């Protein structure tokens, strides 16, 4: 009805933390626990080779993982060129290349 008057209904973008999909996050924490060390400083994002070309953001990826936004994760993770600079600059020693590999595996196994 509202559409007739030029209005549209926005998609509900609220995230229900009680119901979201935490499987990927759990898988990642089990297989690459070093992700827990992340302090969210953003060094990885600043140095990212892919990040120079396109809006690819490992810190954001981490947020997506915690929120359980599987579809977004799937889309984002394909962009990684795997060069490993992020891991070298990480002040906390997060094993970032393995984080990406583990995520790939998690997506493969958990869909």
């Amino acid at each position, binding site marked *: 009805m509202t559409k007739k008057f030029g209005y549209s209904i926005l998609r509900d973008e609220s995230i229900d933390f009680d119901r979201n999909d935490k499987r990927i996050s759990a898988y990642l924490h089990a297989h690459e626990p070093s992700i827990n060390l992340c302090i969210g400083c953003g060094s990885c994002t600043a140095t990212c080779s892919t990040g120079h070309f*396109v809006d690819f953001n490992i810190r954001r990826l981490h947020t997506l993982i915690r929120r359980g936004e599987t579809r977004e994760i*799937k889309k984002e993770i394909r962009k990684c060129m795997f*060069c490993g600079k992020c891991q070298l600059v990480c002040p906390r020693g997060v094993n970032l290349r393995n984080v990406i*590999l583990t995520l790939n595996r998690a997506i493969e196994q958990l869909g």
Partner: protein
Amino acid sequence: MINFNLFVLPFFLGLIYVVIAIGKSWYNWIKALPPVDKVRFTAGIRNPRQVFSAIKEVFLEALIHRRMWRQNPLLGYMHMSFALGWFLLIVFGNIESRYYSGTHLNAPYYPIFLKFFIHDKLVIFFEVYSVPGIFRFLMDSLLLFVLSGLVLAVIKRQKSKWFGMKRTTEFQLTDFISLTCLWLIFPVRLFAESFTAGYYGSGGGFMTQPLGNFLAWIMPFSLDFVAYALWWVYSLVLGIFFITLPYSRYMHIPTEVLLIFFRHFGIQPRIWYSSISDVEVHSCSRCGVCIDVCQMNDAGIRDSQAVYFIRGVRDKYVPEEISRKCLVCGRCQEVCPVGIRIDSLHLIKRRELVSGQAHDFSFLPGIKEILHQGHPTLTGYHPNQDDGVEVVYFAGCMSHLTPSVIRAMKGIMSAAGISFVQLDEDHSVCCGRPLMIAGKDRQAHDLIEYNKKLIRLTRARTLVTSCPICYRVFREEYNLPIRIMHHTQFILDLVKTGKIPLQGFFKRVAYHDPCDLGRGSRVYDAPRELIGKIADLVPVRQETNNAMCCGGSLGIFEASQKQRNDMTARALDNLLEGQPDTIATACPLCKKTFETQSPVEVKDIAELVYLALPKPAYSSVSVQSRQAISYADESTSA
């Protein structure tokens, strides 16, 4: 039949079994070869020269164990005594039995148990001037030869440190059974022959006859029964050894022969798990030489060394972590006496793991956009120059984290008056090697094609890179029609052609070989020669093809930062032994890794050369770069 006794059966059945099993494996391997390799195989087998050189290598490697000798003479002797000694025992045993039987056709068990059937009273035990006497002398010497190796093997199992090995391979059950049988074969043979010789008072050689006589003298009962029992045991251990052989590490004996033939026919491992990879895997003797050189020991990782990985592949079960837990530094490959290409095997397994994973590099600006919009990656490229630039410089992703290296390289090239363009001035596109090392070849292929186009666009005749990882993949995967050089080679060229004069300084410099430049690309001399021109090169204990990995390897995925740091610390200890003032390396990743822990400054060779440029050339470089270098200098030495 006179020369038959029931006890030959275990040996005889075992022999039949093992011949069939090996034949079947060989047949399957040859049958499963990729079509091109099959053609190579049939062509090779018809080429007498190739066959001859293969046979020669089989003799040198499978029997004499030449490569083992070079690494560790004691181990070399041990393996040779078993292989060559046993082989010659079989050969001379057969000839000797022909002498006695007088025919060309013998039952296959006859030579093995000859001393049970023949008691030549005409020959005395120290006789060496008659044909049977010579044989008896030879057979006893060979048995002694094998037994000396056996003593070494027993000692090695208990005290591997005496052999310069900190660790030996941990065994599976089949290996244990096979090993026990193998070890029993020769002492049992010695005693069986001695007891028989003692009982009959003749028929033994210089070792078995006196031993037999002695036993006959001290034993209160007749030796007949004991000798007979021992012949049974001898036959049984041989039989069990043969039956377990195809399932144990001793399968390497027949397989290595096939592997050597494959190699001589030019059959190389594929990027997928082909029949040749399977042959390599079965050729692993689990000697454990690869265990000690593995730097993962320093990080407390003990389950993923090459020998265990290969065993996992052979048993068709490799846990995912194990295939990803490897520095891919190639040290084990250098020492492997069989020459198994362990790194490529690792990558094969990794490829299998990641197959089917999607990727999306559509964000990379296409080649058309680069041309029409003047993409920042091509600043410094002037289209009015018909020939393009002389050099296209690809710093590499990692070099972007060590900007002083890039600055130094630009300074050197400017000083030498070389026109260049830096391909990854602003945006660096990965060379693809990090993806390949994770098994993601398909993804890497996209990047490779992309970079190839960019490189062609510059029309440069030489590609120079600062990163050995890039250098290796440029050489191996890119198929570029231009010269590809690592910056150490390039700078050395400049120095040799007199394009840049150098002023040395009094510094003791230890050089660290990066894995992909050294073992990966066999560039050992250029960096050393270059350092030698400007500073004192301090020798390092483990260098060139035995150099250690810095610990920052992109190859290992399952190592924590702590484990990496432990490996780095050990690699640093090795470099600091000669008390250098500076550690020089030629890889941004090594530099970055060492810098965090090194008590002395870590410099790339390009930086050292840049500092060694004489004043006028030095000052002709822009002031900004010069300050940046001296600033970097202070920060590292502080």
